[in-house]
């Protein structure tokens, strides 16, 4: 029995070894089995195990040719030739096993290569990039389609080199090939949604019949944004949006059939899938580790909803961290203690948002509301791991910032800092996080080249290849680091007097989150919906720029909230803000106080 086992064990030795020594090895085992009994027999098997570990490498190192007396002399005719040293052909089993192992290794290698490269912080690197990081950066730069962004990043890197030694190591620019994320349905729809679909269909048909011939003259049959936006604008409003104003396109007849066909392939006719905003947000974390929320600064109703969200039962079960733009990293420890429920003076905590590096106005109190809401949510569940607020603003110390040169390294690194905080504080820990930052930092297709083009065209409808639209810098970097983000932006019905769109918004059971893929909401011009009327219309749709829209109230109800005049005017904080304005802008500015309407109507904006 033992001899049989050893015979099988010998199969892992080289065939040449077995051929030469198998008989003797078995004879040796037989001798030992014969001579050794009792405890020594047990030791024999132990010896064989250790022998396997020591002897097997030795057996494979030997060449088995030196003693074979095989001639390796060159061919007497001087003709190069091969000599087969192994006389024994490979066995089928060996070929099969070798082939299977090779295929498995190749498949595994291919799988690993196809995976996004997960971010893991490298400790002890002293800020220098590893060779792998360097190669990644090189490759990413080489494939970046948005040269303007890449150049701007490089300029930023060089400008800030050395000045931000305390900051996390800059991470290479993300792959430009990051694809636009899929947009999962947020809900199963509502009865109101169904009625809207019918209304949209009627409007589309009516508009097609009435205005088709004029559009033939305006649009070319290519799948560019200019065409799409014209069609969409026309179908939604019966008007074309140009520079925040509308141009009526009253057309009498002609060519309706071909236009109708083309329209059906271009216009999304789906109904918006409305879902309660809080439950939709929580559910998003079941499929995404990161939800990016592009906020409109200082919005009262927006932050009331955010405060309500963090206190919603179940939110803290799915979300570990909230990364905020309005939090200076210098105060991370203070904020940690505060949101954990410790007794921390509020004056100390509010330094976190009041001392952001880039704010030129007294900071809105809405940000403090969110800090307080997180603290209260955590204190409702003592002993449970609470939500952590991560400070996404660079650790600029205003007491040491005396001029714009002191400020520049922090200001130019804001997005990179924010991204690094997410990588270190969220992705590296495999957490789930809500990211809150001004929508301009998150929007897709918001690259400089496009903005320059829009400005040059005075934001008129221009022809832009949709394939060039990519994620923003932060989203792109996070995707390259292995994250699976989803982008929600705050918006409102700020296109008053342009058809019946406002009525449709009004019918929604706010607050709602609406996915933007494949429905008429996504086909709306991204601006001025997102900005609340401040920005001129652009040839980008909401679906181009985000995954979903948060709607909390009609434009007329939205307000921005500021500190009262008594809290600022003549106070040390007010004086400090004047000093910062001079550093930031070169001159003091007048501060807003109290509350103001958030939206600027298009007519007002154009004046």
């Amino acid at each position: 029995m033992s001899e049989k086992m050893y015979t099988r064990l010998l199969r892992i030795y080289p065939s040449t070894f077995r051929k030469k020594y198998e008989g003797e090895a078995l004879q040796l085992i037989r001798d030992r089995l014969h001579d050794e009994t009792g405890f020594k027999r047990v030791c024999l098997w132990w010896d064989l195990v250790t022998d396997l570990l020591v002897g097997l490498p030795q057996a494979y190192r030997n060449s088995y040719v030196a003693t074979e007396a095989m001639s390796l002399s060159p061919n007497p005719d001087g003709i190069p030739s091969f000599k087969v040293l192994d006389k024994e052909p490979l066995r089928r089993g060996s070929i099969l096993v070798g082939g299977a192992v090779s295929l498995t290794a190749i498949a595994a290698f291919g799988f690993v290569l196809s995976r996004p490269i997960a971010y893991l912080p490298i400790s002890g690197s002293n800020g220098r990039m590893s060779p792998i990081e360097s190669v990644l950066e090189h490759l990413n730069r080489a494939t970046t389609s948005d040269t303007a962004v890449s150049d701007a990043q490089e300029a930023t890197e060089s400008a800030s080199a050395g000045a931000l030694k305390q900051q996390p190591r800059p991470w290479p620019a993300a792959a430009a090939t990051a694809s636009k994320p899929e947009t999962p349905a947020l809900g199963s729809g509502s009865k109101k949604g169904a009625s809207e679909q019918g209304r949209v269909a009627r409007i589309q048909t009516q508009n097609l019949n009435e205005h088709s011939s004029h559009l033939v003259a305006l649009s070319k049959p290519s799948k560019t944004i200019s065409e799409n936006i014209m069609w969409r604008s026309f179908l939604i409003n019966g008007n074309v949006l140009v520079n925040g104003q509308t141009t009526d396109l009253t057309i009498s007849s002609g060519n309706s059939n071909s236009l109708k066909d083309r329209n059906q392939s271009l216009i999304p006719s789906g109904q918006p899938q409305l879902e309660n905003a809080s439950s939709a947000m929580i559910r998003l974390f079941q499929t995404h580790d990161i939800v990016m929320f592009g906020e409109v600064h200082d919005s009262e109703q927006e932050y009331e909803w955010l405060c309500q969200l963090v206190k919603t039962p179940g939110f803290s079960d799915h979300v570990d961290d909230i990364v905020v733009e309005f939090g200076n990293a210098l105060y991370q420890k203070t904020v940690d203690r505060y949101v954990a429920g410790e007794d921390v003076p509020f004056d100390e905590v509010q330094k976190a948002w009041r001392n952001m590096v880039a704010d030129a106005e007294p900071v809105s109190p809405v940000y403090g509301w969110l800090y307080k809401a997180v603290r209260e949510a955590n204190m409702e569940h003592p002993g449970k791991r609470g939500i952590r607020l991560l400070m996404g603003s660079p650790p600029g110390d205003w007491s040491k910032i005396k001029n714009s040169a002191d400020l520049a390294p922090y200001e130019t690194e804001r997005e990179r800092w924010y991204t690094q905080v997410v990588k270190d504080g969220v992705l590296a820990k495999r957490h789930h996080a809500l990211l809150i930052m001004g929508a301009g930092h998150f929007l897709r297709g918001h690259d400089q080249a496009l903005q320059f083009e829009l400005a040059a065209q005075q934001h008129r409808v221009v022809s832009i290849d949709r394939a060039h639209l990519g994620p923003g810098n932060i989203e792109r970097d996070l995707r390259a680091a292995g994250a699976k983000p989803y982008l929600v932006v705050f918006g409102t019905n700020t296109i008053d007097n342009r058809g019946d769109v406002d009525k449709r918004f009004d019918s929604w059971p706010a607050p709602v989150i609406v996915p933007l893929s494949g429905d008429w909401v996504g086909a709306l011009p991204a601006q001025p919906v997102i900005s609340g009327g401040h920005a001129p219309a652009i040839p980008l749709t909401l679906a181009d720029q985000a995954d979903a829209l948060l709607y909390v109230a009609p434009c007329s109800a939205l307000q921005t909230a500021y500190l009262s005049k008594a809290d600022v005017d003549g106070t040390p904080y007010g004086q400090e803000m004047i000093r910062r304005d001079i550093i930031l802008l070169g001159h003091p500015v007048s501060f807003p106080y109290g509350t103001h309407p958030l939206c600027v109507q298009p007519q007002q904006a154009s004046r």
Partner: protein
Amino acid sequence: MPKRKLDPLPSVAFQIMLALADGDLHGYAIMRQVEEQTGGRLRLGPGTLYGSIQALLEGELIEEIDRPDDTEAHQERRRYYRLTAAGRKVARSEAEKMADVLRVARIRKILRGDYV
């Protein structure tokens, strides 16, 4: 290739060469001899033993010889090995190195006089 495998000389190979210094032996006898000369601390398994023997053969430090005439019938299948002149020289050189090491260890008072 063989020289690289045996330089420095592995302790197992050296023990095998020492075992063969007194006369020709077959594999099992080499194993027993090594066990005896190391006080039972080293018992060579087949893989280690024949792997080392092969390396020594390739290095021409030992050689395979014809069966001695007085072997019994059941030993006919065994191979016998003999230390070559080169092997003896290498073994001597290795022993001298060890002797030097021993001498230094004794001077440094790491070893006492019990060790030769």
